[in-house]
């Protein structure tokens, strides 16, 4: 397990490095002079030249990339334009809110999707199965910002069960959780459908497996067969799917943070784009890439922990 983790971690480092290279190329290829953009139209040529030297733009491209690369790995993503604070600090301030949002979305999707999919598989062909099928397609089809807006209107505005905006009182965990309920539902609802369908399909496949027949032939109780012998195998593809789905959830998080006026990386990047705060945009993209890769890594490690066959392959 340890060597599996180390190898997988090495792979994650490579992926982030490649992402950095791509991000750097993108900044480099975008037309326009970053110094001119940063200083605005009223700056003189001398001022721009000075900034270019300060930003290292007069160096050869590979030196620029190397500096960018080394600095980024050391957590130095430059300073943002408006307040001149380090980008890393600004992003890290907002990051916990977004991570909480994503984890909340995953919790919703897992807590609803796995039992629903399992139930549908066990009762396959029944009305329950059909109902879960229809609901799954429905929640997959609805875009997350629509879920966000309706959730806000119904539960916060009309029924007034839950708060409408913000992330809750700092330091008050209960209040923060209550504020998390609706936005994370908006992020996770579509995934309830994906996961229910995925779990149902893999459950049906696993229930046909020879070892399940053997388990029945040994007289093991149905509950043990369904939950310990079949479901533990059937959720493996779901964990992998969720790992990849983090990317999609990150983009849903942008909408959820805007609709619910929550702090977070999504809101940050939205504001940064509106104010053309480019260092902040690149920094945020880089940090979310790292988050994506890390959560993906976590998903793979969970699969490794659950499946001894995967573990031994490394």
């Amino acid at each position, binding site marked *: 397990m340890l060597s599996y983790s180390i190898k997988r971690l090495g792979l994650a480092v490579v992926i982030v490095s490649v992402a950095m290279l791509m991000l750097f190329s993108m900044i480099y290829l975008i037309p326009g002079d970053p110094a001119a953009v940063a200083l605005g139209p009223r700056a003189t040529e001398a001022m721009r030249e000075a900034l270019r030297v300060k930003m290292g733009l007069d160096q050869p491209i590979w030196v620029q990339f190397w500096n960018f690369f080394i600095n980024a790995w050391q957590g130095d993503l430059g300073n943002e334009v408006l307040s001149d604070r380090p980008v890393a600090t600004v992003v890290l301030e907002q990051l916990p809110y977004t991570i909480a949002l994503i984890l909340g979305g995953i919790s919703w999707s897992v807590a609803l999707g796995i039992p629903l999919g399992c139930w549908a598989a066990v009762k396959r062909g029944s009305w329950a199965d059909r109902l879960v099928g229809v609901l799954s397609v429905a929640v997959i089809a609805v875009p997350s910002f629509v879920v966000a807006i309706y959730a806000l209107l119904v539960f916060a505005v009309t029924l007034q069960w839950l708060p409408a905006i913000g992330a809750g009182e700092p330091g008050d965990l209960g209040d923060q959780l209550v504020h998390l309920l609706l936005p994370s539902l908006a992020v996770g609802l579509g995934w309830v459908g994906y996961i229910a369908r995925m779990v149902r399909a893999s459950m049906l496949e696993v229930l046909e497996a020879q070892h399940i027949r*053997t388990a029945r032939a040994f*007289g*093991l*109780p149905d509950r043990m067969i369904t939950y310990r012998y079949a479901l533990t195998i059937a959720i493996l593809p779901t964990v992998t799917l969720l790992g990849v789905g983090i990317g999609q959830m990150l983009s849903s998080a942008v909408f959820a943070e805007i609709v619910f006026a929550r702090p977070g990386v999504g809101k940050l990047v939205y504001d940064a784009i509106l104010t053309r705060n480019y260092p902040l945009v690149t920094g945020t993209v880089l940090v979310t890439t790292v988050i994506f890769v890390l959560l993906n890594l976590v998903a793979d490690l969970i699969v490794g922990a659950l499946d001894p066959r995967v573990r031994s392959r490394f």
Partner: protein
Amino acid sequence: MTVLAIENLNVVFATEGGDLHALRDVSFKVPEQRIVGIVGESGCGKSTLINAILGLLAENGRIASGSISFEGEDLAHLDDKAIQDLRGPRLSTVFQDPMGALNPVISVGRQMRNIQYRSDLARAEKDARSIDMLRQVRIPDAAQALKRYPHEFSGGMKQRIAIAMALMMEPALLIADEPTTALDATLEVTTIELLKDLQAEIGCSVLFISHHLGVIAELCDDVVVMYAGEVVERGSTRQVFGNPSHPYTARLLDCDPARQSERTRQLPTIPGELPDLRRRPEGCIFAARCDRRMDVCAAIPPDIEVVPGHVARCFLAESQ
């Protein structure tokens, strides 16, 4: 004493093309501490028979009539829960595919402990029993093996572990559905010997299904020959192999290469095809492929006793 007595068992599958009569009037007995072999081409209903005994028929299958009495209870009319309670402690099974027979994500020790879920023994005692069973099937380093997962064992070892699991509760009847077909010849021999030793030690009966006539001849006390869902001939191994009284058995033995060499382990092929079980031909089920067909064969032959204990479903048996 008879452990298992099947009488006039009929199993029907509902299919899109109509009812498929997979077993027709199947009767035979498994006496105490005997090994009974079942032979027949693929598709003749061997697995269906096992599933009917275990109460694990597919959802579209049902026992249309007949009885399966096991230790005095009729499994054909027992509810699911009651049969489930017999599976494991009284009635156990080893299946063909050793690769897929064990759960890949649960350790061997845990699977063996789970099989003992009905017992009140403490966890350590259950594990001790598991280790003991693994030793009996000659798994090296049995204590360590409990912590390992199925993919860490070879095919032959997996099959032996499956046998250990099946015999752990000391059942009265072990059903073995082609347990050695997927193994190579050397492993097959050792596995058969192991089964025989364990059977003698535990004192259970075995219902052994195989394609391999050589193995049946060596291992089994009695033989049941099946063709297209019917038992065409049954008796002691010596009776059936020495004096095959149904043309189908005779043809199997005639061209069985296993009698001459150990190389081929498939059943010999006989010209013609299995009849479509959704539209059973009138008369004898084997008539279309039989080279000794007579006019009377247009009627279904009765089970005729050649000598006591040796029965063939063929008019020819009468004249013997």
